[in-house]
């Protein structure tokens, strides 16, 4: 049987993390399923638990000059309901899980879980989100694409937790979020796609694309994006096939019970093509 710590304050939580090897548990919607046991028996956790969902120090949404700051403990439903939330993130949240899951699942949990099918991730990548990571005696702020290494793996050290995420508060001329899943609610994504673009005087001034659930990590290729920025919209449209081809090698889905690799790759590229064609 594992031990559980329920700290009274955030400071105490950081202290406990500094001294013990712990599994952080927020809403528990991922962890309770992963560690499920026979009905009536305790879940099969391997490490001692640190409960954090009740820590109000990590439960806030605030707007600063050009950024939105969301505490790690904020639930998915609260973010969905917030006036400050970026419209793309709202779209991703509104078709994510179900109300019952969104009421307790947290944004920190969705990010730390680092599932390539995590529904907030493509949007957080496309919005250039930064993750603030805290330990008792340090703090670092890391772009999300450096924070997540691969499926289920992040750069979090054992004494660290996510304290907040910072989302630049920008508006875009073009923005899209699309999810392909089996059932409307509680469906794990087969593919998700998020993209933004800005166009001024027929020149593409910003262009970002991400794919979720098509490989071990979210796909975002900055180099390809940089080659597109500066093109005229006509050039962009005429190079559509070439651009889609350049993403091909990064989209490496697997066959699983949810979908086949061939289907995922084909649909991903179709979504990209359609998106590029929509930019005028």
């Amino acid at each position: 049987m594992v031990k559980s710590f329920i700290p009274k304050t955030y400071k105490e939580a950081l202290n406990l993390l500094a001294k013990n090897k712990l599994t952080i548990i927020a809403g528990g919607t991922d962890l309770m399923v992963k560690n499920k046991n026979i009905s009536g028996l305790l879940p099969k956790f391997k490490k001692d638990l640190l409960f954090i969902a009740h820590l109000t120090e990590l439960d806030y949404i605030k707007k600063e000059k050009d950024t939105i700051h969301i505490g790690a403990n904020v639930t998915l439903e609260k973010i969905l309901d917030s006036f400050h939330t970026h419209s793309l993130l709202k779209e991703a949240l509104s078709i994510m899980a179900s109300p019952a899951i969104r009421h307790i699942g947290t944004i920190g949990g969705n990010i730390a879980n680092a599932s390539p099918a995590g529904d907030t991730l493509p949007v957080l990548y496309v919005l250039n989100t930064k993750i603030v990571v805290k330990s008792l005696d340090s703090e670092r702020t890391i772009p999300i694409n450096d924070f997540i290494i691969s499926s289920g793996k992040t750069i979090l050290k054992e004494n660290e937790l996510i304290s907040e995420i910072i989302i630049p508060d920008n508006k875009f001329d073009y923005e899209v979020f699309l999810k392909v899943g089996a059932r409307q609610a509680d469906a794990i994504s087969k593919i998700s796609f998020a993209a933004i673009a800005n166009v001024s005087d027929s020149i593409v001034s910003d262009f970002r694309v991400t794919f979720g659930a098509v490989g071990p990590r979210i796909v975002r290729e900055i180099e390809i994006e940089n080659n597109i920025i500066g093109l005229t919209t006509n050039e962009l449209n005429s190079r559509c096939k070439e651009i889609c081809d350049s993403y091909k090698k990064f989209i490496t889905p697997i066959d699983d019970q949810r979908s086949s690799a061939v289907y995922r790759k084909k649909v991903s590229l179709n979504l990209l093509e359609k998106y590029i064609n929509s930019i005028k």
Partner: protein
Amino acid sequence: MGKIKFNLNGKEINMFVDPSARLLDILREQYGLVGVKEGCGEGECGACAVLINEVIVNSCIVPMGTINNKSIVTIEGFSKTKRYDVIKEAFEDEGAVQCGFCTPGMIIASESLLNKNPHPTEEEIRIGLSGNLCRCTGYNMIIKAVKTASKKGEGLW
């Protein structure tokens, strides 16, 4: 073990319990609240739904360590309210119950929805109930029942 304090169906509870234990097991086994059903045990069907601080949550994936100072209402507690009477009658009138296994969860989902949005559209009802599975009715009667409850219970929410 840890001390967890919460309110259950209006009663203050202080209990020593393993914080990793599932709320579902504690409700059914320690408090005999067997209106809370276990379907999937993985958060996907809503049979185990309860209200935590007035919103729907699936108790099969809630560890006790997260409910300190919260208020839990199960279908047993909710059944003592006027709102319940209205929803129950609407479910009966619209034929929204067959085997009944999903019904406690469906009623909790309806309450959670109507509490936030007393006059939901059909689309909003579908979203509100989207985490609850029913293997018998085909959902349309349940959707209709929520509409009826929203009308007949005017002023209650």
